[in-house]
């Protein structure tokens, strides 16, 4: 089960599709369990123990080599095909889901046949006791994931832990079998597996960098492969931080003097780009300047999300009484407070020196449900809603809680991530977000920002307009972003997204 969970996590990370990844892993895995347990009934009594050993050994091999094989296959596939972008296309998605299904099915068959075989072995243990012990296995896997740092470990460490536990099971079987040969055989495979797993971090780095840099090379010869690997190894550096909630990637590109290109640093959350050096200021300044322009006398501010500290940095030199920032991911805050580049970008805003600022590590839903103090301004800066988990933060119930947290003359500004479809109309996902806000009684939206888009609402439902006579001390780039867009707002095709009846965004 731990193997299937690792596979589901791996697929989610590389496809960015939460529901598909879980379904295409857990579905075939359960199907495999069914096939495996059905087959186990047909195994002759005399060979059950040997089969059990063989199945356990095969599981060990598959789980240990699975991440490396998976990443290597995706890397080879995506470079052997003439795609525009390495990972984010339909063909790559189909390939990854198909690969996941096959691996999950295989793991399921191997896992499913072991328990019925175990039940039928000659022993004095009562059936119900064995069933109970069997249930304790998944409990251990879940407990390990929940109450430890395992989820933020590098992938190959997670796999090594599972392999180690499986090896213990194999050793126990060796004791039952009382044979030396299988014991030595299982010991022999450990070392190549460790090497294989260790190489996984290099393959992972190559795959991620090739995806972010959109390398597209005609890989026709060994020389072209070598050139690609040399380029990926030497061009950009990638720093990867796993937290229990997300994977943060920082891609640093050096300046190119021949092409007169400046260097850049880009932040990705779960492989979705958040900002780079060219866009970081215009995004965060737009949000803050829009708030100051639309509402005078802001005393209390609530920021939901924004663990990178960049919104905090924009507020630091301003006048206000109290700012509360609620961020779920403590590791994100810690990383943003200590990483040299992030510290430079947020100018140490997360250091905790400003007595007006309170940083709370909590789930935004939980915080809003349990705190009823009114705020003059609420700013929402969440990642793209590409998972069921994140879609909750774009739901009717969530917006109703936000409305409750605003004072009667309060202001709400949030990021509007998906704006226009190919025909220039408001994309369906955007329509769903606006319709959901409308259902929570947020009326008269002001959608603005041709470069970085946002939507603003007044709690008293009045129509919001920018006052351009008060925009003197704002950078030109930001000023150009404080422009209303989509004046004719039609969100009739959208659906209300609810936590209790979620719509895919």
């Amino acid at each position: 089960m731990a193997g299937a969970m690792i596979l589901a996590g791996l697929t989610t990370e590389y496809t960015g599709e939460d529901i598909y990844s879980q379904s295409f892993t857990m579905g075939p895995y359960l199907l495999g369990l069914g096939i495996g347990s059905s087959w186990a009934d047909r195994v002759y009594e005399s060979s059950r123990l040997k089969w059990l050993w063989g199945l356990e050994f095969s599981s060990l091999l598959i789980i240990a080599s699975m991440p490396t094989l998976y990443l290597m296959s995706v890397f080879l596939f995506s470079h052997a095909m003439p795609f525009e972008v390495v990972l984010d296309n339909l063909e790559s998605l189909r390939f990854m889901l198909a690969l996941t299904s096959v691996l999950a099915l295989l793991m399921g068959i191997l896992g499913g046949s072991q328990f019925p075989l175990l039940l039928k072995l000659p022993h004095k243990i009562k059936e119900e006791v064995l069933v109970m012990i069997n249930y304790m296995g998944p409990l251990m896997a879940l407990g390990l994931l929940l109450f430890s740092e395992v989820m933020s470990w590098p992938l190959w460490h997670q796999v090594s832990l599972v392999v180690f536990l499986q090896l213990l099971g194999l050793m126990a079987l060796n004791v039952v079998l009382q044979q030396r040969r299988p014991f030595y055989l299982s010991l022999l495979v450990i070392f190549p597996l460790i090497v294989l797993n260790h190489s996984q971090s290099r393959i992972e780095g190559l795959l991620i960098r090739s995806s972010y840099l959109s390398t597209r090379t005609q890989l026709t010869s060994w020389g072209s492969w070598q050139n690609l690997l040399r380029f990926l190894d030497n061009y950009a550096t990638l720093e990867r931080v796993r937290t229990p909630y997300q994977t943060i990637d920082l891609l640093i590109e050096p300046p190119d003097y021949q092409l007169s290109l400046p260097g850049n640093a880009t932040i990705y959350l779960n492989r979705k780009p958040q900002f780079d050096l060219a866009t970081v200021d215009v995004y965060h300044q737009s949000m803050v300047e829009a708030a100051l322009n639309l509402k005078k006398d802001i005393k209390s501010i609530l920021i939901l999300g924004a663990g990178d500290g960049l919104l905090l940095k924009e507020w630091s030199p301003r006048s206000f009484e109290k700012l509360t920032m609620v961020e779920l991911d403590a590791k994100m805050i810690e990383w943003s407070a200590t990483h040299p580049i992030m510290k430079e970008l947020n100018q140490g805003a997360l250091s905790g020196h400003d007595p007006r600022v309170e940083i709370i590590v909590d789930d935004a839903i939980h915080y809003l449900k349990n705190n009823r103090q009114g705020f003059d301004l609420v700013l929402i800066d969440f990642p793209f809603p590409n998972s069921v988990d994140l879609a909750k933060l774009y739901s009717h119930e969530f917006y109703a809680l936000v409305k409750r947290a605003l004072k009667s003359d309060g202001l709400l500004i949030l990021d509007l991530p998906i704006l226009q479809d190919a025909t220039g109309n408001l994309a369906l996902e955007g329509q769903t977000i606006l319709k959901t806000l409308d259902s929570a009684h947020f009326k008269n939206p002001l959608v603005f920002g041709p470069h970085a888009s946002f939507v603003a609402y007044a709690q008293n439902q009045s129509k919001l307009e920018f006052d351009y006579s008060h925009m003197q001390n704002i950078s030109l780039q930001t000023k150009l972003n404080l422009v209303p867009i989509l004046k004719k707002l039609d969100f009739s095709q959208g659906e209300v997204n609810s936590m209790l009846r979620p719509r895919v965004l």
Partner: protein
Amino acid sequence: MRGGLVYGLSLVLAFCSFYYELALGQILSVNLGGTKQQYFIIFALFTTALGFGSLCFGRLKKNYPLEKIFVGVEIALTLLGGLSPFVITGLFASLSTFWAAAISYFLVFSIGFASGFELICLFTLLPQNHGKILTFDYLGMLAAALLFPYYLLPELGVGASTVLVATLNLAALTVIMPLGPKMRLALSAVVGISVLLSYQQQDTLQDFLVKLYLGAK
């Protein structure tokens, strides 16, 4: 009981149990936040309870006939599973977070505990075909794992789909219980009406749950 019937029961009951697990994960993550964490806690609690349930079966079997245990378990599951999303949301609306969470987790454990009896009851009904019973058990879980995210949750919502699944649980009783034709007809009518109501009143159930949720602290 015939083999086919036992396999069918294994499929349906596994579907219901796995659905309850998923629905409770969703409800608790909505009330407490932290989806991943809540799903892990639910799976862990549920699995432990399944283990204890199957362990207790041995003792219960000595004192009660198998049929009685099975019927009792299914009645308990229909009530606990069918009402739990509403009860849990109501608890968070009226009690402190600590007590609401504690009682909710106890409910989760109880549903898991009752579900733990099911597989071992089915094993007892057909002692030679453990593998096949497990196959249908896994297939039931597969059906729930696919139907929950793609149909039940987005189309019906947690409220209506839970009523629907609890009705399915109730329908299993008609197979297990030795009923006369009149009682069988009456129980089938209750099942039919429940299915119709959950489809037709899905918006009412959804609104009721949302109001209950927003009334919460």
